């Protein structure tokens, strides 16, 4: 962080031999896309225009009629001038101040434009080999610096309006609350190049290494994931190739998977309504009123239900439409979205927990979903939102083969032997010779449904937590990312000699708690996980994933 500025420039130029594909990653200050102020200010402008139009609708119609069809005009037309805007307008016309007001308007618009232009003008960013920096503000200057080896992910968001003019927002997720650095907006192709450059810099690729790799450039991209992302890196040229997704989600499955859970609720309400409204009315009412009441009930309940069904399908679509997940040299790239396309790139070693889940209704279809815990730089208020839930969802729905692929992408360092524990023993439940440490018989009282299933396994790479018999869940916590391990015990647990084990990770939907283990087991496992986490963390160099060894 103490890099002197002139050196930074030199090192970046050295680092990326071609100067970076975007020529923005050169350690110099750059500005964002010149249309940014228009786009940001334009929204405000449209809103103001909308308000004005809504207020002056009558008057405008009157004017239009006066312009195009003067003979239809009659002096009887009374304009309802109750609202303040109309009254102000009347007063202005009455006092012959139109010119003055027009000049004033022009001045205001000019001032707004100049303000936005100034904001744009003063907002600059630069990318060095250590940091991405953004400085902005005219009176209150702020400068934000995100160290590259702590970048948790790079997101490319393309909101619908911005997509129309080919702009995108690039967000660097830092490690910490409110640590995001956003570059909005850049031209889409430039944003993609900047993303590639940032990730290459973050990967710690050293120049010497890049040169050494040059001869064997096209050798290993097709290799298996299990050799690790480190091995997949086969040089600069592959960065800009759009990788092919390893998972396809057919539209029917996407909608079906959401509908099956959402529609179940709808059915539930439907049955309730039939049982408590329709049936009593049909039985006890007589005469013509009966049909009216039935029709009204059908309408008042049917319309919201149709809306809810549409909403369910819509949310499914917006979550997983055009879903793709692919390995790139810089991590896993996940993109999805219908109107707003979000492309997230998760560098290796930033995944703190992975969970494979299947709810009961999905089981006949063999569908699974995959969620992760990772460090994001959102504000605390965003962390519990549905947005965060969407961000944690890596695979909305997929077959077992899909889920296996995704898990092995997310955890490239996992030894192949571990898959056995994940799938055969872990996800699919206790089988003979179960390697998981499960809860003892006397704890069945607390977890009756999960008896024999709720359990933990520690492998050389990760801690696995198996949960849920009806809805199956298996969580994988790479030991190298575990932040701490705790054992706790309450009054009742002590009487039964039970204890609760918990692995602590960054906040997210995947919980590392296993309750009601045998007390001795819990303490032994806590010790094992503690030692394992340390050994794994010392051998871990994924925060500079492409350099041979960790520089820090």
């Amino acid at each position, binding site marked *: 962080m103490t890099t002197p500025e002139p050196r930074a420039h030199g090192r970046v130029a050295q680092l990326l031999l071609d100067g970076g594909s975007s020529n923005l990653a050169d350690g110099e200050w750059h500005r964002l896309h010149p249309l940014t102020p228009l786009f940001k200010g334009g929204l405000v402008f449209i809103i103001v225009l909308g308000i004005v139009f809504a207020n002056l609708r009558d008057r405008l119609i009157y004017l239009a009629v006066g312009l195009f069809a003067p003979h239809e005009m009659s002096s009887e037309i009374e304009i309802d001038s109750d609202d303040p805007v109309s009254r102000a307008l009347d007063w202005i016309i009455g006092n012959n101040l139109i010119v003055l007001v027009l000049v004033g308007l022009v001045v205001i618009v000019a001032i707004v434009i100049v303000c936005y232009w100034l904001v744009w003008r003063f907002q600059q960013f630069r990318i060095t080999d250590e940091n991405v920096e953004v400085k902005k503000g005219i009176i209150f200057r702020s400068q934000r610096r995100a160290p590259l*080896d*702590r970048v*948790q992910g790079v997101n490319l968001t393309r909101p619908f309006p911005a997509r129309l003019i080919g702009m995108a927002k690039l967000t660097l997720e830092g*490690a910490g609350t409110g640590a995001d650095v956003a570059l909005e907006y850049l031209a889409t192709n430039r944003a993609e190049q900047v993303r590639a450059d940032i990730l290459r810099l973050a990967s710690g690729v050293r120049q010497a290494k890049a040169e050494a790799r040059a001869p064997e450039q096209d050798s290993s991209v*097709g290799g*298996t994931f*299990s050799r690790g992302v480190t091995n997949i890196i086969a040089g600069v040229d592959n960065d800009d190739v759009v990788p092919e997704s390893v998972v*396809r989600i057919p539209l029917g499955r996407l909608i079906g998977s959401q509908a099956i859970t959402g529609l179940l609720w709808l059915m539930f309400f439907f049955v309730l309504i039939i049982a408590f409204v329709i049936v009593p009315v049909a039985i006890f009412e007589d005469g013509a009123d009966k049909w009216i009441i039935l029709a009204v009930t059908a309408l008042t309940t049917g319309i919201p239900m149709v809306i809810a069904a549409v909403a369910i399908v819509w949310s499914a679509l917006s979550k997983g439409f055009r879903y793709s997940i692919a390995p790139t040299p810089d991590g896993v790239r996940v993109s999805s979205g219908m109107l707003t396309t979000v492309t997230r790139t998760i560098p290796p*070693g930033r995944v703190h927990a992975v969970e494979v889940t299947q709810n009961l209704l999905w*089981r*006949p*279809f*063999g569908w699974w979903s995959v969620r992760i815990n990772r460090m994001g730089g959102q504000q605390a208020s965003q962390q519990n939102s549905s947005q965060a839930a969407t961000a944690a969802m890596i695979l909305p729905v997929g*077959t*077992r*083969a899909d889920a296996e*692929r995704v898990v*092995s992408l997310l955890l490239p360092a996992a030894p*192949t*032997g571990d*898959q*056995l524990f994940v*799938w*055969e023993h872990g996800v*699919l439940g206790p089988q003979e*010779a179960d*390697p998981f440490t499960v809860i003892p018989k006397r704890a069945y009282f607390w977890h009756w449904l999960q008896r024999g299933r709720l359990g933990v396994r*520690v*492998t*050389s790479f990760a801690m696995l937590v198996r949960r849920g018999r009806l809805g199956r869940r298996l969580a994988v916590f790479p030991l*190298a*990312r575990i*932040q*701490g*391990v705790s*054992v*706790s015990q*309450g009054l009742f647990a*002590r009487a039964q000699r039970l*204890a609760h084990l918990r692995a*602590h*990770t*960054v*906040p997210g939907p995947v919980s590392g708690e296993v309750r009601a283990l045998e007390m*001795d*087991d819990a*303490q*032994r496992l*806590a*010790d*094992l996980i*503690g*030692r*394992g*986490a*340390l050994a794994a*963390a010392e051998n*871990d160099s*994924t925060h500079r994933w492409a350099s041979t060894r960790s520089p*820090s």
Partner: protein
Amino acid sequence: MNESQTPPPPEPNPSSDPQTPPTRRDLRADLPPTPPAHGAQEPAAYPSSVPPLPPVPPLPPEPVADPDFPPAREPIGAPEVLDEGTYTQLREPRGGLALDGTWHQISPKYVVSQLVQEIALLVIVAVAAVVVASLSGQWWPWLVGGAIAAATIVSLIILPRQAKALGFMLRGDDIVFRRGILWQRLIAVPYGRMQLIDITHGPLDRVFGISKLKMVTAAASTGVEVPGLATPAAEALRDTLIEVAETRRTGL
């Protein structure tokens, strides 16, 4: 966490051999088109460029032993000042979680400081209840005041016990923090995982010369807070922790 004290349960059959031929059908090998166990009906039509999944070794017939991790390092040397003027006997529940090693405890001044605060609160509640009750002529302020007072008094009674159950241990690789008697919690945080260490002391804490030390990791749930350390002890602990963390630094 304590290899030495609690006898480890019998290792789940250490004689297992992972190379034994499969005794069950290998579920992975025949996934498409008819996976037997879970009935996924997806006749995988993936692009040919997708690398094949690595082969899965056959299921071993016996449970596999736990992995071998290097043993923990020797405990780090704790500064003398940590144990000056603190409680000397950790209050542990009988038959609860236990851990071998040297526990460092907090200063008894913490209890006094909390006592003063709670009593001040009691006085305020009593005054408020009297004023509101006499002004409004109602009886309910006594109820509210009484409830708050009762809760405060209960917490006052268990406070010394709680304070004696607070402890931390500096082990070779991690710091272990414990608290609680009825509801007991032990947490181990590796030194390399510490993001920052926070020392706070309020006005009353300053009078009694104690401070609260808080360790922040990337996981919000670890929540390691040691209240009631004598200020020199807190500073010494902070310096020790930072020094150790410097040498064991890891990524997030």
